[in-house]
């Protein structure tokens, strides 16, 4: 069967993460929440430690901690500290506590690199199912709330005046982010999840004239990075997660050059 090939599983896993991350990444860029992705992602390492010590599945552990982190950030924001300070503190302390907790685990010689940078080539059938269920869930949440999310992103008061509660929409967005982090940790790892959110969206900006198009183009760029990065990493025998992100960064740079050329052509 097709899914028996580890390459096919890896490609499908990369595609799933890229497609789920694209629309969320657009919101992360529009709302200037880049650090938020970092905070939830770094907390994921703590989730890994938790999962190993309570022998839960990695997915459950990571999702629990990512959700806790999301809730904590949401409730602490606007209480004295600027958002970037708060997120900076939480992102790095979560990572630090996570690393300490992992080292304290008795007997378990776990491959920390796999969780920091992902291990897409080791994706099994169950992992693949989890990734795609998560992706479909995230996409349905974002599609369902799309207009309300977009209105709240533009201006919270405009949202209130239209009968939308922007705080509820923010919660939906944070839940979706936590879910993406949890499913993506196997693919690109905790350190590079933010990159998969932000880089394709940023690259798509140059080619989009509506929010919807930006999300779709971001998905395309993310998918190209995932599939291309997978091939490149096999060809050059480089780590897959970083290669995927590296290719996305190259596409981002090219989009910038293309955009400048287009503007020069117009001017």
């Amino acid at each position, binding site marked *: 069967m097709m899914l028996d090939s580890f390459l096919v599983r890896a490609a499908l896993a990369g595609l799933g993460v890229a497609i789920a991350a694209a629309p969320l990444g657009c919101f992360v*860029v*529009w*709302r*200037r929440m880049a650090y938020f992705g970092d905070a939830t992602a770094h907390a994921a390492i703590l989730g890994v430690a938790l999962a190993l010590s309570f022998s839960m599945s990695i997915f459950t552990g990571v999702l629990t901690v990512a959700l806790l982190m999301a809730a904590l950030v949401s409730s602490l924001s606007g209480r004295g500290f600027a958002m970037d300070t708060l997120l900076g503190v939480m992102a790095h302390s979560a990572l630090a506590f996570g690393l300490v907790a992992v080292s304290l685990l008795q007997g378990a010689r776990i491959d920390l690199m796999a969780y920091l940078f992902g291990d897409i080539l080791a994706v099994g059938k169950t992992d693949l199912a989890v990734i795609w269920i998560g992706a479909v869930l995230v996409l349905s949440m974002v599609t369902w709330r799309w*207009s*309300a999310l*977009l*209105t709240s*992103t*533009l*201006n*919270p*008061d*405009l*949202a*209130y*005046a*239209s*009968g*939308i509660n922007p705080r509820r929409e923010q919660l939906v967005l944070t839940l979706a982010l936590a879910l993406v982090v949890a499913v993506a940790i196997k693919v690109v790892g905790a350190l590079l999840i933010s990159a998969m959110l932000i880089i394709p969206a*940023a690259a798509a*900006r140059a080619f*989009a*004239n*509506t*929010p*919807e*198009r*930006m999300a779709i183009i971001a998905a395309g760029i993310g998918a190209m990075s995932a599939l291309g990065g997978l091939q490149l990493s096999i060809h050059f025998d480089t780590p897959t997660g970083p290669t995927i992100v590296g290719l996305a960064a190259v596409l981002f740079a090219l989009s910038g050059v293309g955009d400048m050329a287009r503007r020069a052509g117009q001017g």
Partner: protein
Amino acid sequence: MTLVDIQGLNVRLGGNTVLHHVDFQIGTGEIVTIVGPNGSGKSTLLRAIIGAVKPTSGQVKPAKDLRIGYVPQTLHIDPTLPITVCRFLGLPSRVSTQIANEALIGAGVEGLGNQQMADLSGGQFQRVLLARALLNRPNLLLLDEATQGLDQLGSAAFYRQIEDVRRNMGCSVLMVSHELHVVMSASDRVICLNGHVCCEGAPEHVASAPEYRALFGSGTQGALALYRHEHNHSHDHQDGHDHSHSNNHEAAE
């Protein structure tokens, strides 16, 4: 008919009392202006009406058929967010191109539909916000210093547009403004706010009230003179005596 009925409204934000025991009603077809110094709670009052701030005590009672069109004070669209005027008008509920175009005509910015919001001038941007506010056929239009960043000509033109809108749609208008002379002459009623309602009533009443003068002091004498000047003209034919009296009064100031 009363569209919004506010009774005993108190709002505390971050430990500060922003609004203190505010009673306020607005009825069908009225134009009401809220004036007051910076930090007097003008925007907070509007935000309480749209439900963006919760009253600490007291209540805000909207009429059952209240439809609000809201034009915010500022709207910063992040440069990373691409959005055309047409798409912006369709938030949160999609509208047909025809309805979008009609709204743009109503706000005096025909044919901008395919432009990026980021490429609009300040005046065009405010009118697009107005167009969006008019889309759901509001019976109450809320404007929060909607002419901030426009020059005098631009804001005068914007307020003429608001008067047209009221005439055509018959909606009530509640606006917050610093531009006392332009706004007061067009209002049925003026509320002078400084955490609480200092004074309210017809524009001429408020302009001469000691509470209003205490707040705005000498800084607005020019504006008041201009306001009175316009006001006198409308009464010229009825009352020659009043005209000369006011002229003397202006000269005395």
